[in-house]
């Protein structure tokens, strides 16, 4: 049961251009969404998050957009840098103030070419 879907296993962009990573979800109870970045042989590292009461959150080069009616979110990286090359995971939770689990997508491998 794929509650969180990342349909693009890979994405390749040129340095300086925009990277757009997409994520869809099926569970309408999800109310908080997070993006994690993962390098090989390391654990997932938090990047940015968004609550379901917002439609946009920005942090430096990273912006996450949420479209609740479409159950879709996207991560924009502008400008993309070679150091951004990693696997990006979308995660979702029904956060109630405790130890609610994260549900992850399968990830998208981003390659930023110099």
């Amino acid at each position, binding site marked *: 049961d794929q509650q969180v879907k990342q349909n693009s296993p890979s994405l390749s962009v040129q340095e300086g251009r925009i990277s757009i990573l997409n994520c869809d979800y099926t569970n309408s109870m999800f109310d908080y969404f997070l993006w994690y970045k993962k390098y090989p042989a390391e654990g997932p590292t938090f990047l940015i998050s968004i609550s379901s009461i917002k439609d946009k959150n920005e942090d430096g080069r990273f912006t996450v957009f949420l479209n609740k009616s479409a159950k879709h979110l996207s991560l924009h990286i502008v400008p993309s840098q070679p150091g951004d090359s990693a696997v990006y995971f979308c995660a979702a939770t029904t956060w109630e103030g405790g130890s609610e*689990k994260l549900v992850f997508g399968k990830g998208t491998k981003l390659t930023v070419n110099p």
Partner: protein
Amino acid sequence: EPEVTQTPSHQVTQMGQEVILRCVPISNHLYFYWYRQILGQKVEFLVSFYNNEISEKSEIFDDQFSVERPDGSNFTLKIRSTKLEDSAMYFCASSEPAPRQYFGPGTRLTVT
């Protein structure tokens, strides 16, 4: 920034053996988690732990698995009798009362 640490980084064990994976969560965090990632697949939730008891567990977390917080700093995952299909990266995570979870670097478990 404070980090979650995990030991060992790589554990090789024979099928049927017991393994204990260790984690030191961030010191002021109250919520602890184990996830695993089988090669090529997504990160999957195993168990969450709060106030010295399991809050939630997935269907993967069967009777072969157990978690413990033996002292004020460590958080362990025990697999009693390992199977080939337990081979995976195991990630420990911790959090404050907030959705963001902080992940450790993982332990690669190889069952032969």
